[in-house]
């Protein structure tokens, strides 16, 4: 076997697993309705939260709130959709496969590993979130009349920033999936709560500077804080949070990249450990629903 074959075969196999599990994920998530209803479902949440924030700003506009302020809120809220949907989606897959469909154990009797399977399953959430983000951006641009992008906006770089943040979200999702392997189903709300915690601490919909000092310190430890700030700077040309003003765009890129690499390393170690514990304790076909 040549060196190219030795490398190519596992990569090909990995691509096959990702593709198949992504297809399975799509069937599970999307085949309950016809495509138009599913499309409505995918965009309902982002549009609703956008409009909630729009009316919140509008109702106090006499207090000095401006369209400019709403633009920052809008960008943060729109891209946060990736965090809330993808993060929760991966760990939810573990519970659904383990307890509802009772198929998690069959992953272990198939010649595949659980980790790439879960990453493939996350594809549907990534796709529907991307659709939600795009529709929300178009809605903001053409219905709400927001200016998105400035002459200096490098759209390719923006795409790279979105993908980099998304990769971080995926690895954090794998960490939560590891937790899900060793806890009961009803602990799912703890995972969901983490999304709420990030929504609050990342300053997705308000400037970080209004947070109490202790919460602000916590916020500065979260990679998504820097991610959202970077996206806002790229789309508006200016930062939103005074607390992050000391970081240049380059610094934000570095922080985000290092955090993503760190999350990846942590996720690989943590997930392997959780998987071993789950197998040792016989939790792979655990049923805890009540």
């Amino acid at each position, binding site marked *: 076997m040549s060196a190219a074959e030795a490398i190519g075969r596992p990569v090909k196999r990995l691509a096959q697993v990702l593709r198949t599990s992504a297809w399975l994920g799509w069937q*599970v998530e999307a085949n*309950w*309705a016809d495509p138009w209803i599913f499309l409505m*479902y995918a965009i*309902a*949440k982002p549009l*609703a*939260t956008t*409009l*909630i*924030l729009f*009316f*919140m*700003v*509008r*109702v*106090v506009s006499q*207090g*000095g*709130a401006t369209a400019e*302020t709403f633009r920052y*809120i809008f960008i943060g809220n729109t891209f946060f959709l990736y965090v809330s949907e993808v993060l929760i989606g991966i760990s939810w897959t573990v519970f659904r496969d383990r307890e*509802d*469909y009772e198929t998690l154990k069959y992953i272990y009797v198939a010649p595949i590993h659980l980790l790439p399977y879960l990453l493939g399953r996350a594809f549907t959430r990534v796709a529907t979130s991307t659709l939600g983000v795009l529709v929300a951006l178009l809605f903001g641009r053409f219905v709400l009349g927001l200016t998105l992008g400035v002459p200096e906006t490098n759209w390719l770089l923006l795409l790279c920033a979105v993908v980099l943040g998304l990769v971080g979200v995926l690895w954090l999702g794998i960490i939560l999936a590891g937790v899900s392997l060793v806890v009961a189903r*009803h*602990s799912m*709300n*703890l995972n*969901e*709560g983490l999304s*709420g*915690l990030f*929504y*609050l601490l990342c300053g*997705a*919909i*308000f*400037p970080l*500077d*209004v*947070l109490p000092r202790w919460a602000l310190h916590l916020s500065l430890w979260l990679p998504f804080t820097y991610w959202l700030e970077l996206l806002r700077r790229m789309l508006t040309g200016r930062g939103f949070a005074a607390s992050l003003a000391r970081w240049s765009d380059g610094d934000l890129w570095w922080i985000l990249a290092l955090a993503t690499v760190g999350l990846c390393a942590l996720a690989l170690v943590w997930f392997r450990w959780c998987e071993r514990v789950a197998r040792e304790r016989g939790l792979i076909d655990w049923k805890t*629903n*009540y």
Partner: protein
Amino acid sequence: MEGESLSTRLRMNLRAVYARASVRVKASFRERSWLLGETLFPFLSMSAFVFVYRGLKAPREYEGFVVLGGAMIAYWNNVIWGMASQFFWEREQGQLQLYLITPASRMSILLGMALGGMAMTTTRAAAILAGGILLFHVSLPLDRALPAFGLFLLTLGAAYSLGMILSSLFLLWGREVWHTATILQEPVYLLSGFYFPVSAMGTGVAIVGSILPVTLGLDGIRQVFYGHAAHGLLPVPWIPPIQIALTLIFLFIAAITLRYMENLGKHEGRLTVRGD
């Protein structure tokens, strides 16, 4: 003889209500992670919306709007996930058929679920309100608490009656239940004005939103507490009769749809389908 039979049936149904409600209350306190997940985490999301108003330098009453909305969301989510979707969960766990073979009325089971759900959710809503008052210093004038509480009870009656209708509609569904329940969250938060005065969307949209009892209930409670600053949609005296009318209409529809859907389920053999 007939009177005796009626009183026996009444006693049996009251016992069914009590049994279903007590299971819900006991289970909710037994599972500590639920307590945490249903109080702390919704509070975090709500806090984000409080900080939006703080960032916008809005008058302090607006933070009060969010806290009241956050407490009401706890009930709405319970209506969606604990009432509407409940028969779906019961079917998935193989318990629905047990309800159906008992002589107790399905409405008694639903009433028990509603009362238990209200009791369970009240602890969550109280925690959210207390957190809002203590951490965000939101002011809720206590001298107006009694009329607000009355309006709140009427709102719960109407909201849980709506939950009974949804419960019967969801009875036969499979995975659609998850997604429909999800779709009844954020869009309803918008339409009911959980985080802002519903009148901000314009009278037409707000009136459409008022088909959901939580919309008018929340609007009325805000008006009771904050007066004109609440940007009310309808005068407060109009709201109680509307809520009572909605409760009666929803209960009537629920009784019909429940019977219809149960019969449909039996004919199509879908009441025992699992993993759909």
